[in-house]
């Protein structure tokens, strides 16, 4: 276990089988189960996954992870995160991941652990990566208020019409704090036409869904 495991012929034939992993990642994966002991490997994988899924999660510090061979541990953390990111990006399932890893001649226990954790958390990983990429401000929340002025600095009497203040926004994922994207006012007719517009979109969606 401590020394390098039995070399498979695949390694000799093809030094970089998947072609997607950089040498650093491969080196980091090879540390697992070898330079880094199996229990620590398990811990490292679990930690990396948790921090990937929840960037602001707080994890109890694990000093023994960096006690010896801290450089290798840092390399391996990077390697695990990258491996999972790439596997998710290319839509691999657990089996495909295992096949790719087996070609790299890694420690068998590490391969088992890596594929098991990936299989268990595949959906979360996809969800996490689905969010990544450019997008416009996303509206998820809408607030309104009916307003009628009583008196103003420029007019002594009320307009006598109720207006709508409409506020479109969303919630910041990290803090849960509400963020306003756009705010505007409109009167009843304008609101009705806005609703009609939005219903037109909905109708179109229905059309697409059925036809």
């Amino acid at each position, binding site marked *: 276990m401590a020394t390098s495991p039995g070399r498979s012929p695949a390694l000799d034939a093809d030094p970089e089988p998947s072609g997607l992993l950089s040498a650093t990642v491969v080196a980091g994966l090879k540390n697992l189960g070898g330079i880094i002991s199996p229990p620590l490997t398990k811990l490292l994988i679990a930690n990396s996954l948790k921090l990937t899924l929840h960037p602001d999660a707080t994890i109890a510090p694990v000093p023994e992870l960096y006690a010896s061979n801290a450089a290798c541990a840092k390399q391996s953390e990077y390697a695990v995160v990258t491996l999972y990111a790439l596997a998710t*990006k290319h839509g691999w399932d657990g089996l495909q991941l295992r096949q790719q890893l087996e070609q790299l001649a890694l420690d068998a226990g590490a391969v088992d652990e890596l594929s098991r954790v990936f299989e268990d958390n595949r959906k979360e990983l996809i969800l996490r*990566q689905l969010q990544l990429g450019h997008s416009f401000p996303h*509206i998820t929340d809408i607030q309104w208020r009916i307003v009628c002025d009583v008196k103003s600095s*420029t007019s002594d009497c009320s307009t*006598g019409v109720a207006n709508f203040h409409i506020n479109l926004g969303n919630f910041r994922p990290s803090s849960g704090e509400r963020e306003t994207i756009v705010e505007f006012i409109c009167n009843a007719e304008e609101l009705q036409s806005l609703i009609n517009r*939005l219903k037109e*979109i909905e109708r179109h969606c229905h059309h697409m869904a059925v036809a």
Partner: protein
Amino acid sequence: MSSLRLSQQQRDHLTLLQRHSSDVVELCKSAFDYLINGPNPDRYEALAKKYSDSESPEAVQQAVEALISLLISATTRVGSSTVNMQATLRQTFPDLGEDVLEVLEQFVTSKRNFVEGSIKSANIRAYRLVNLDWRLEVRTASRSLLKKCQVVVTMKLYLHTEPKNENRELLAVDMSGRSEQELKAMQEDERLHRKDMLVQTDVSSLVHMIKTLEDALAESKTRRIRNIVEGIH
């Protein structure tokens, strides 16, 4: 019904009204022209010459401006009840002839709509929604996920701070006879008052949005809200 509050200076400027009603009509026309096109010194000079008795063009311009201020304060003070307009005017100008008062009342009531919308919502200008463009998108791949199917509704909101559609139309003047600089200034103004926003949402949220907005609209039509609005009015 109380009289309109006018400063002594304004009253002085309005002494020109103590003339024949046809002259007052001319002045009122000038005032409306002022509202649309700004001051017109040539016209005032011609008017001053017509009055001949030692009136300067400046005095005519001041009278015109005082008329506008009268229009604004009349619109501000007196609500929608047109009945009281004449009484108010009479109280404000007890020394004016009946026919002149009639002309004034006509001037104030006819141009009232023009001023009203602008005044009432002029103090705090919020954005109004003018138009909305939309597009249904499906995102099929990204750098971090090569295969996905994400349905997104992208919308462009056109917002404008101008008080109201109809007023903007009223204020719209033909572009033909304007200089390059003026046009530029108008465009700049347009740019300052406009904001276009690109936003997106998902279909589920869209459905929710429609429902919420409809609730708002329905709420505004309830008896309770109507009573409150009418009570305020």
